[in-house]
């Protein structure tokens, strides 16, 4: 019944199946919305945060989705500015994932602050010295850019495209997309960096504090770098998951390999920088503040050296080497494994820079603060995941996200008819709730 809206030359599952899928994910979404409403109306006492743990699951999720959404700006930069035209085949999806990640981040922030109705004070009474102000400005601006980047995609819907104005608008927007992509990359550079700066400037927290280059702590550059390196991995991973769920190839291997190779080298260079940073911090910065590395990793039940190993070696060096090795990279399974490790790695890094920072005692007579999230926190963190899946489902169904899909999956007339008749064998688009892309 919605066949008029479905892009030409591709097939989609029957509407009932689509609706069922939407319903299942929608239920999860509603659960998250319920928790969100609880947080708004009853306050943040619904969480397990406390005065020692003022930043917790949400802020981690925020930093993580922004890092993972980094695929959008970096792929955009590569395609429109550097001119890697091959990436046009994945840029739409990268933009969509970026849009989801950034809108989720904004939503999470709206729940996270104690007085959401006043959150615009961050613009109105802006403190230009605060990294968070920089984050807020760049994040909002970049979200606008992502929206602008996403809009032409919506306008390419079969029905909308029929309207001459819309068609022209979309065409014109495409013309100027390089400008937006460049703007986006510029903004991203700053907000990814300032998110890194959020932790790095905390000179009261030796675990987070890093030396500065001009006004920016090293974490500023490390965050931007890691987002550029790990973000595309997430794009690749979600693409792979989408392919698995739809049971068809959506992007050609050449595109995948190119992006994987670039991500691999970015990661490789990043992880070298990260290792240098870690060594310098452990041997110079922290001791100058009266701390030894051991202070950060002992005397508590959770935080040990294993975190350093997991983040830097297992989920840093290993996937980087895998991706820069053509033989491994060209193996689909190993490629997927590498992207999974990378996604874990960057998420772990953001976890360390938020939650471990809060946990480590600074005053010698203080305690390690341990924390686990309340169900409301978990639900509101899963909420954007459900929202992302829904947006992907709808976008995939009605918009030409993957330019190569029709080419890679030529329609047979009878299959088309079968699809229209709604037989199950050929319909496989609905993602199972358990198989959600690991965005957060």
């Amino acid at each position, binding site marked *: 019944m919605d066949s008029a809206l479905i892009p030409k030359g591709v097939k989609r599952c029957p509407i009932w199946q689509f609706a069922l899928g939407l319903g299942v994910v929608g239920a999860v979404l509603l659960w998250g919305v319920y928790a969100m409403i609880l947080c708004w109306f009853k*306050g*943040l*006492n619904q969480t397990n*945060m*406390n*005065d*020692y*743990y*003022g*930043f917790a699951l949400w802020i981690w999720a925020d930093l993580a989705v922004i890092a993972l959404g980094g695929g959008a700006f970096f792929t955009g930069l590569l395609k429109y500015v550097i001119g890697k035209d091959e990436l046009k085949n994945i840029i739409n999806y990268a933009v969509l994932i970026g849009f989801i990640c950034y809108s989720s981040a904004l939503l999470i922030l709206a729940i*996270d*602050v*104690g*007085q*959401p109705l*006043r*959150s615009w*004070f*961050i613009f*109105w*009474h*802006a*403190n230009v*010295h*605060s*990294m*968070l*102000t920089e*984050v*807020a400005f760049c994040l909002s601006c970049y979200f606008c850019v992502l929206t602008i980047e996403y809009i032409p995609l919506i306008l390419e819907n079969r029905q909308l495209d029929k309207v001459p104005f819309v068609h022209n608008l979309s065409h014109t927007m495409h013309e100027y997309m390089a400008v937006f992509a460049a703007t986006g990359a510029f903004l991203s550079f700053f907000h990814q960096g300032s998110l890194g700066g*959020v932790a790095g*400037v*905390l*000179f*009261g*927290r*030796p675990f987070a504090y890093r030396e500065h280059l001009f006004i920016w702590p090293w974490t500023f550059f490390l965050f931007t770098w890691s987002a550029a390196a790990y973000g595309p991995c997430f794009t690749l991973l979600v693409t792979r998951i989408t392919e698995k769920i739809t049971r068809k190839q959506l992007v050609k291997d050449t595109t995948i390999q190119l992006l994987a190779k670039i991500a691999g080298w970015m990661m490789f260079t990043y992880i070298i920088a990260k290792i240098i940073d870690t060594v310098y911090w452990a041997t110079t910065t922290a001791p*100058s*503040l*009266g*701390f030894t590395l051991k*202070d950060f990793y*002992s*005397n508590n039940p959770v935080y040990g050296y294993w975190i350093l190993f997991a983040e830097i070696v297992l989920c840093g060096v290993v996937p980087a080497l895998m991706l820069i090795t053509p033989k491994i990279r060209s193996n689909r399974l190993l490629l997927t494994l590498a992207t999974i490790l990378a996604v874990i790695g960057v998420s772990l890094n953001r976890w360390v820079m938020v939650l471990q*920072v*809060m946990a480590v*005692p*600074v*005053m*010698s*007579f*203080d*305690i*390690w*603060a341990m924390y686990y999230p309340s169900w409301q926190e978990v639900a509101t963190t899963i909420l954007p995941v459900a929202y992302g899946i829904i947006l992907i489902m709808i976008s995939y169904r009605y918009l030409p996200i993957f330019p190569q899909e029709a080419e890679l999956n030529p329609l047979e007339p009878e299959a088309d008819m079968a699809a229209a008749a709604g037989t199950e064998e050929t319909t496989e688009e609905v993602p199972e709730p358990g198989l959600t892309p690991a965005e957060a």
Partner: protein
Amino acid sequence: MKHSGNFGKPKRYGMVIDLDKCTGCGACMVACMAENNVPFKEDESKKLDSISWLQVYRLTNGKPYPDAEVCYLPRPCQHCAGKHEGHSPCVSVCPATATDYDQQTGIVSQIYTRCFGCRYCMGACPYHARHFNWWDPVWPKGMEKYLNPDVSARMRGIVEKCNFCFQRYQKATEKAHAEGRRDLEENEYQTACTQACPAGAIIFGDLNNPKHAVHQIAKPNLKKGGQPQNPKAFRLLEELETNTKVYYLSSKQWVQDAIHKPHLLDQKEAHH
């Protein structure tokens, strides 16, 4: 909160707390809560969501019976000046300029109506001097009568902290202005905790003023970020260059060691 305006020479209000005298009675905490309309709720035993601007920590020397020793350490906001006057860990990070370093007094204050509750300042503060209003403050019927009109009751969802009873400074300066004076006497402006302390363990005044007891006892070296020149005196986390305005005195070596050496202490005893 209003700015203090231009009033006399710039001050650096600070404290000296004598740990040898502090008995851990907690009168300072109560006086602070009473002065500053700090709310309370049914269960205050979860100390990490219990608002108390001034927290008295219980330090132990970590030795087994019968060599155990205990020292109490009251911790108000340390009113950090940072490496350059005003670069406090918290003030520098607040995105909405809701916390403020008053150059005239050196006091770090919080603007409750501007704070939107991002809690970045709490993460930035190594002393845990900042508290979030996780709950709406509720006073049992009738008890709202004792609320101090000079201090607004805070709403849910914002951060609050010790401000050295800034409202008292404002009152004192208003009075002095009315009387045509440019400066305050030492005893004209004292915090609620200083006033209440039965042990006289808290001394408050202008660290810049050589006539004030705090200056005479701590002997801050203004060229070296206010480092104390009294060998008995120390500040918390001196190495971080937070340049705090709260000095502590202790004649016990183990206390001085405990402040400086992380994890000398047993975790289980450390808190409150």
